């Protein structure tokens, strides 16, 4: 128990080191002594700040979404994208790219949000009707496939320029996140993350299976609904502004469980928030400096880094 507390503190301290680094590191080298001067303030606060906050909160949001869905479906492979939310947001994005040819970031995001929320309504409709989590999982994945096919049909008939625009969107990046959306973006994510901290009891109970959760006083059908809602909104908000970011949501809960060796979500939820945030911010910082002067999409880095990490964890777990 004491050891776990120390580990949590270590991870939080790591965040406090990483967040300023997110403001410091980038294409343009900012000397430390000039950090608070007027000279670089535009780069720091209008370009790097939204990106740093966006990726940190985005990582936390996707990771909590993944954690909730992994617990809900009692499936270690569940991630933020199993409910088809991100596919829906991509459909929104590609339609916008098609209609407006040169869409502004705002129209793109707004359409993505609208489509994600339509999808959330669909998922909730099934969640309420079916009351059976396995069916929700299958329906989410199937709708995801269906929408992907839809996207591919649009791409098939699209001119090359639109296809490239869309492809850049699909790779996922926080570089395009404008400062104006940060208040809204942060407010939604932070309030949902705090709300999740109040749901530790039902989250723990779900880990013992629905029957036992019921027996110990948890209204599972109510919480099924709440969990699906929270994780969909968290996924929708991130994918609508940054595009789909692979692996973070799937990997962070596993990393948290590996580091803390606990089933108590009091620890795991907190750990997942900070591990997810740190991991995505780290990937974002890496994406700025890996191939200078290019700023590659963070979605590429997460996949490149995330897949080996998960494999490594599973490998170490087996040989433990």
């Amino acid at each position: 128990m004491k050891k776990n507390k120390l580990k949590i503190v270590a991870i939080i301290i790591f965040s406090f080191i990483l967040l300023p680094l997110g403001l410091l590191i980038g294409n343009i080298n900012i000397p430390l002594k000039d950090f608070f001067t007027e000279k670089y303030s535009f780069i720091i606060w209008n370009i790097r700040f939204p990106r740093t906050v966006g990726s940190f909160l985005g990582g936390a949001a996707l990771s909590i979404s993944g954690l909730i869905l992994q617990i809900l479906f009692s499936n270690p492979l569940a991630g933020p994208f199993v409910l088809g939310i991100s596919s829906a947001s991509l459909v929104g994005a590609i339609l916008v790219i098609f209609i407006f040819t040169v869409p502004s970031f705002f129209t793109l995001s707004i359409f993505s949000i609208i489509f994600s929320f339509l999808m959330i309504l669909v998922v909730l409709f099934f969640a309420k009707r079916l009351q059976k989590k396995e069916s929700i999982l299958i329906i989410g994945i199937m709708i995801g496939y269906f929408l992907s096919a839809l996207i591919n049909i649009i791409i098939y008939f699209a001119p090359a320029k639109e296809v490239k625009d869309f492809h850049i969107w699909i790779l996922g990046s926080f570089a395009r996140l404008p400062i104006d959306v940060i208040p809204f973006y942060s407010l939604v994510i932070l309030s949902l993350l705090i709300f999740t901290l109040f749901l530790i009891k039902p989250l723990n109970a779900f880990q013992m299976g629905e029957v036992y959760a019921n027996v110990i006083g948890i209204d599972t059908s109510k919480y099924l609904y709440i969990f699906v809602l929270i994780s969909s909104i968290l996924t929708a908000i991130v994918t609508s502004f940054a595009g789909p970011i692979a692996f973070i949501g799937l990997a962070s809960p596993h990393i948290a469980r590996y580091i803390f060796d606990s089933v108590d979500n009091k620890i795991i939820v907190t750990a997942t928030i900070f591990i997810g945030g740190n991991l995505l911010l780290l990937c974002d910082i890496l994406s700025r400096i890996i191939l200078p002067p290019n700023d590659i999409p963070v979605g590429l880095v997460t996949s490149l880094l995330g897949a080996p990490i998960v494999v490594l964890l599973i490998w170490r777990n087996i040989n433990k």
Partner: protein
Amino acid sequence: MKIRLEDLAIGYDKPIVENINIEFDSGNIYGIVGLNGCGKSTLLRTISAIIPALNGRIIIDDMDINRLSKLELSRKMSLVVPEYFDLSSFTVYDIVAFGRYPYKNFLLKFNHLDDEIINNALLELELIDLKYRKTANISQGELQRTLIARAFVQQTPVILLDEPLSHLDPQHQFDIMKILHNKAKRENKLIIIISHQIKFLTIFSDFIVYFLDNTVKMDKIERFLYNNLYNNVFSLNEIYFDRYSLDFDIFPYKSKKKILFIGGDNDIIIFFRYFLRNGYTPYCYNIEKNLIYYYAKKWNILINKKLEEINLNEYEYIFIDENVKSKIYIDESEFGLDYKNIIYYKNFEDLLYIDI
């Protein structure tokens, strides 16, 4: 605490059993018996409001359970179901601690009292040494006891258990039943148990709840045994339930093929089932008393005849103890020409090598 089932119909989409009218009272153990798939588990899950009743009402202390919240219900009733979920990453303590959830708010702060309750349950079920062991590394029986300990720390007046004795060895089955019995009598709890272990139900439960003729009935366990209802409830065929020994055996005399033992001793009872499963019904001839016995729980007298008067042709095999060979006379010409199945044996060891 009383639980009353009024015109209850249970099932998932369409009713399995209807018109259940039963009342359970605290301080008693109720055993539920019935065929596989007859609705025992469904009944237990309906009572604990995990699945809705299709018709009728469940009244717990004059309150319809539908009017109780999940939390209120969790302070009245606890349920133990067979392990159906992957719990391997939990420690024994983790699982047992879940039982305290009905008394905790969202902060889940466990205090000294909770730890004491949990420790007591772990001691009661002999799990204290396994407290921090992952359930992946304990036996099925230990896991079963862990799940029961979880129900105990929930401190509910009603405890429902679905097959709590499965995976347990006889001594542990007895221990669990004894602990449950003490819970019911000393702490005045209402305990309902589904089990196929009729022996332990008979020893420890007060009432038996049985599924028969599309409804559920309840009776004192003694009357249930006296009326031989067990055979009806399970529509036993080829085997039968003996109400005195509380055990099952194969129905003999289904087979027309007979075997006769002459002389010998009771050790051949050990081979009784060997002959039955190979399609023969064994009889035993006692030369001193001139009696033919058959075996059903004990040796029973069948006929009183001298050996000479018995038609030996009826028997496919005749086993003769070499020790009594000199005392009897068997006219082998009495048998058909091709009849060669007279086998002599000296002792138990010889019988082990019989191959028919």
